[in-house]
């Protein structure tokens, strides 16, 4: 069973997002890190870049493949987590602690799911 914390929101494309101190924090879900397998490379945008809800903002490479990561929100990148660039295994180890980007000036969001609805998405794909 995959962990999907109640306090987070999710996308159908397996990203999580939460609002924290006026910023929207984005990361990969447990299901995503498990399906990808051992992540060996993370490519992040730069601070100040614009991201759009539903569009690619990052790609991650695992032993299996390279996969796109989609932004749950539209806005401007305020912070990026350099730690996961240096050590991509952090995403596999603690995907809800190892956030990817924090977004400010958020103007809109993708269709976000709560934990329960997201669990159903996972169940369908698993």
């Amino acid at each position: 069973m995959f962990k999907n914390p109640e306090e987070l929101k999710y996308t159908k494309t397996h990203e999580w997002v939460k609002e924290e101190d006026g910023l929207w924090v984005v990361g990969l879900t447990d299901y995503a890190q498990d399906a990808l397998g051992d992540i060996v490379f993370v490519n992040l945008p730069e601070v100040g870049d614009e991201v759009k809800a539903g569009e690619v903002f990052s790609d991650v490479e695992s032993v299996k493949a390279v996969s796109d990561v989609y932004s749950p929100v539209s806005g401007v990148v305020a912070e990026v987590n350099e730690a996961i660039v240096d050590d991509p295994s952090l995403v596999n180890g603690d995907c809800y602690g190892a956030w990817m980007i924090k977004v400010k000036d958020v103007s809109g969001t993708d269709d976000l799911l709560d934990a329960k609805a997201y669990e159903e998405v996972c169940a369908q794909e698993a």
Partner: protein
Amino acid sequence: MKLLFEESKKGRGNAFLPAADTGSYVPDEKYLRKSALHLPEMAEVDIDRHYTQLAKQTHGVNDGFYPLGSCTMKYNPRIDEETASLPGFTQIHPLQPLSSVQGCMEVLYRSEKLLCEITGMDAMMFAPAAGAHGEYTGLLLIRKYHQERKDFERVNIIVPDSAHGTNPASAVMAGFKVVNIPSNDKGGVDLDALRNAVGKDTAGLMLTNPNTLGLFDPNILEITKIVHEAGGLCYYDGANLNAIMGRVRPGDMGFDCVHLNLHKTFATPHGGGGPGSGPVGCKAFLQRYLPCHKVEKKEEGYVFTDPEMSMGQVRSYYGNFLVVVKALTYILTLGKEGIREASGKAVLNANYMMHRLKEKYEVAYDQTCMHEFVLSLEGLKKQTGVSAMDIAKGSLDFGIHPPTMYFPLIVHEALMFEPTETESKEVIDEAVKIYLDLYDKALSDPEYLHSAPHHCPIGRPDETKAAREPVLKYEFND
């Protein structure tokens, strides 16, 4: 196993060379190297044993079945090696007078003509060293074409999601932006998505046909028309030419330029890092932008010319010439009928193998395939926990090289098979039996496959560690 550097013993070696009788010369101080050269010092026998040992730990097409999809690991006839070993081809220097290498020039000239006939192009040149280099060069042709017309808005290259990973990479290297378009439910290009993607910013489309699912896109004429009408050019990735050579030509499908992988389709052993050859071909209107050093036939003999608006040089001299010698030999030994027969048998073998494996495995796109096909082990994995990787590892115990795994990306738990025309029915039947047995094993004893292979010198190297902490050079103590 030890590295050469670790086997080295100071002073050891083979004194086969006679003492120099010309006196020695020490260059000026400023030209001398500061650090030691660290060449391994070994006896010939130890070097020989080292490489023999390495060879025993590998699997080549001369060892057994090698169905690595999209790589066309077919057998390379000995005669091709033989001609490429002729001293007239090997004992030459790139700068010697052209009058003394007219035979070599003729090889390039005749190869160009034959490969243009096979691809439907008007010109071809052989400088690019391998496939991705050929892609890059072809994209520079497209770029040069738009720039010469002062059409600077065209910055996008459209790439379907089933493309080879090198396609988007080459496009970015050549200064373009990549626009991905999805496949339709038949595995081909989604025409509506393509129509929506093209516009004034479209520089071109990169396509492999048949694509990486082993499927020939029946809409190909419509696809190239849509791109042309938007003002873009069409680029053909020749990776899968083995499926169509002698039957249909990229030039007739509407493509403006192509690259070939001579090492795949035209008989050079590959997969070990080279040398390859990725010649670029184009229609007449692009010819003037081709890279430097193209062979022309003049009254006085063969000469090198630089195209009028050439993009310049993309590699030193004339490319990997001996690979071209092998390709020419291959084409001439097979002849027009043989080339056609080879692609026909490659497609027949793939379909035969696919239909036999369907007895138990799930085919990703269940339709007549070309030279390769893709299985999805998603269902098996859900049911048993046995993954595409586990089945591939399991096949190693039976002397089979694994198929391509986890590619194309649009198929989950993908295994991609390309048996090539090399294999007989008996070899394919034997391989099919092994794969069907592995399927049963997955149901009865998944643990056994999780830890496969059980009888190979190397089982499961730590791929994660290799990717996260690559060691790319040897560190000497001094």
